[in-house]
């Protein structure tokens, strides 16, 4: 697959805090990558480096094979960006701002497409920006981004402030641009959104990519929740190194199983006459929580 975005060993220090220690991941053509991590993990810093807004202290980052800092202008002709907190000029209308952003790309404003998006997002472009709510300001940036014919879309919590219906419109748009071969980097705290939309996921924690790959791959790395019941008593499950967080409830045992140790567990439990066995695949949330807890000093 053709790599569109390549990031290798990014480092960035702000004063005394090391915001990025080692960030590496790639994005291929037509891929949607979910970029997740707790607050302050370095998501926005990474995205801002990709946009050439801030300069990495070390490491390489390129889009379309061009350096993100030196060739920012060239790159941005094919990149669209929506930040999580959009501020606009109070005395201009939303429609004017959308046109400005599109005109800066050197493209003729595709009126039909713009109107279509305005309709889909149920946006009123004739009001001055000072009157817009957070969600509406967000729509200005989203419409400008989707109306642009970009090859890479960078979204930093783009749906913060949108209602669930608009969120769905966003997802639909994202799938459409993916269908025509564009790549998307989506940073979001709405994990269900990432789960539905993304092909791959990169999890960042404390300035490092701690996990990356397709969702399926990642699931193997994590734990499956098992609920089971046996006729005979099981001797100290907690002593087994594949079992975590063992708990007993109404005669059932609930615990977290290392996903690659399923066979071992089945062999272990087999002699005790199993009457019930449920396994729930890990959700992205579980994956995420695991790393979130790590940052808090757990596990």
């Amino acid at each position, binding site marked *: 697959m053709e790599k569109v975005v390549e990031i290798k060993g990014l480092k960035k220090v702000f004063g005394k805090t090391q915001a990025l220690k080692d960030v590496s991941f790639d994005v291929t053509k037509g891929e949607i990558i979910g970029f997740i991590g707790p607050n302050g993990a370095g998501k926005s810093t990474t995205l801002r480096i990709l946009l*050439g807004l*801030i300069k990495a202290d070390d490491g390489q980052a390129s889009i379309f094979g061009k350096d993100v800092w030196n060739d*920012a*202008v060239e790159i941005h002709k094919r990149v669209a*960006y929506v930040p999580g907190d959009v501020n606009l000029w109070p005395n201009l209308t939303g429609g004017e701002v959308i046109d400005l952003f599109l005109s800066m790309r050197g493209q003729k404003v595709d009126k039909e497409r713009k109107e279509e998006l305005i309709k889909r997002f149920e946006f009123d472009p004739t009001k001055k920006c000072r009157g817009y709510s957070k969600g509406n300001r967000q729509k200005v940036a989203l419409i400008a981004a989707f109306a642009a014919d970009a090859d890479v879309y960078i979204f930093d919590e783009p749906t913060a402030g949108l209602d669930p219906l608009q969120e769905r419109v966003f997802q639909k748009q994202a799938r459409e641009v993916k269908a025509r071969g564009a790549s998307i980097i989506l940073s979001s705290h709405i994990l269900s959104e990432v789960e539905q939309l993304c092909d791959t996921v990169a999890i960042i924690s404390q300035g490092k990519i701690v996990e990356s790959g397709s969702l399926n791959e990642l699931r193997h790395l994590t734990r499956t929740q098992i609920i089971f019941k046996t006729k005979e008593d099981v001797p100290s499950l907690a002593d087994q190194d594949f079992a975590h967080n063992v708990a007993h409830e109404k005669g059932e045992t609930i615990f977290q199983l290392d996903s690659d140790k399923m066979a071992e567990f089945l062999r272990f439990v087999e002699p005790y006459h199993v009457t019930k066995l449920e396994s729930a695949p890990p959700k992205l949330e579980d994956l995420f929580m695991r790393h979130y807890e790590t940052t808090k000093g757990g596990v």
Partner: protein
Amino acid sequence: MASQAFAQTGRLFRFAIKKDWLKIFLWLLGVAFYVFIGVFVFVEVYGDPAEREALSYAMQNPAMEALFGRVIGQNNYTIGAMYSHMMTILGFVLFAIMSILLVVRNTRSEEEDGILELIQAQPTGRIAHTTSAILLLLVTNGLVLIITAALIIALGDTSMTVEGAFLTGTIYASAGLFFGAVTLVTAQLSSNARGAMMLAFSVLGISYIIRIIGDGGVPFLSWFSPLGLLYNTEPFVNNYWYPVFISLALSLLLTAFALYLKHKRDMGAGLIADRDGKRHASAFLKTPVGFVLDLIRTPLIVWTVSMAMLGITYGSVIGDVDSLLGGNEIVSQIIANQEGISMAEQFMAMILGVLGIFSSVPAVQFLLRIREEEKKNRLEKLIAGTRSRYHILGTFFLISAVIAIFMQIITSFAFGGAAVVMDFDVDFLKVMLAGLAYVPAIFVMIGLATLLVGWLPRLTSLIWLYLGFVFVNLYFGELFDFPQWLSALSAFHYVPEIPIEAWSWTVVFGLTAVAVGLSVAGFIGFRRRDID
């Protein structure tokens, strides 16, 4: 890559005009008004050479020279010379402020708001946003030049030559460009708009003070102040052009430096590091008064220091007035037109009036801070709490009123103290009394601001227009012979000029009553109206 850095400057510039034209238009209107008033009034009122000569002598004293600059062209004090002398320094300050605000508004403010992030994520050059602001600065100051020159040529008398008119316009524009360029640099140094503005205003303040010291007897120092430097062009008197080139060269250097920094640095970063804050709110911060005081802490400190310094500056020269001008008959006729009152006392009364107006600026500014909070949607958080609206506006109001008194005490104390230290024949207590006499007038100003906050929240800046009028009235009222009814509109007009006039309880109670009336109306309006 170098050309890429400027990419889309043109488009951003056109857009900047679109969003900023009204503000620039209003400023230019102010510039035109300033020049018009100066030329028109000088030509109309000071047609008589003898009168002008008398005035030139009257102006030749440290206090006046500190304010206006040293007298130029005294041996032939034409209308042109008079205009250059009286209008230049004040004009510089005005145009410098215009340019500082313009640059901050179009650079660091938009960066702080995150607008620049959106722009720079488009295919625009890394410094295009800044170069567009520079273009806007150039065009605005270019228009200042043209408007000034055109008005002077159209309205001036024969002493106001075309060359002088263009030089006047050019130095106005040069002052604007210089301080605009300074602001371009401070916008890179500080990570926020307020810091950038404060730094730029500090440079302006320091330039003014260096010029005062220079004109006060250390002439070479004036050259080190951009204000003094450009003042030395002496339009209509000598028409020296070379200070303009020095100023433009410096502006160019500063601009280049600013662009270099902008190109190099990260978005959102400043070269001056931000300090870490406190983890917890102190008990003081949790009280309403403590909260508001914390909001205005830095400007309050800056204002206190500035006012004290102004007081000291004027206080330390006031005593020289007598020795400098005592022997001059013409001056005595014009200035000391009241028998038995010393020149020093007459000047003192006037200077204290000016300082009183200055004191009302922070008082009003801190009251209007409530509007700032409202516009930023922070007021709703305060009102949604358990405090009533009266309580919240009352807190701002109280602090504003206390600061008015505080500022007057500081300036009068600095003024009187400096005068006493310099061993001048000045009654310290009288100075304090003279300062305090202005407090009720400042209260009226605060009352008016409260009224605006309560009833016309979108037009609160009208108070500055009124303040400008009060200043013009006090400063130029007698010079320009303002009609009585017009002067009567100024709250400061009623304040007795101690030590020339006596303390008046009638005025104190009268003005305070007006202030209370306005404030009460304002409070009622604030309680009834919607919060933005």
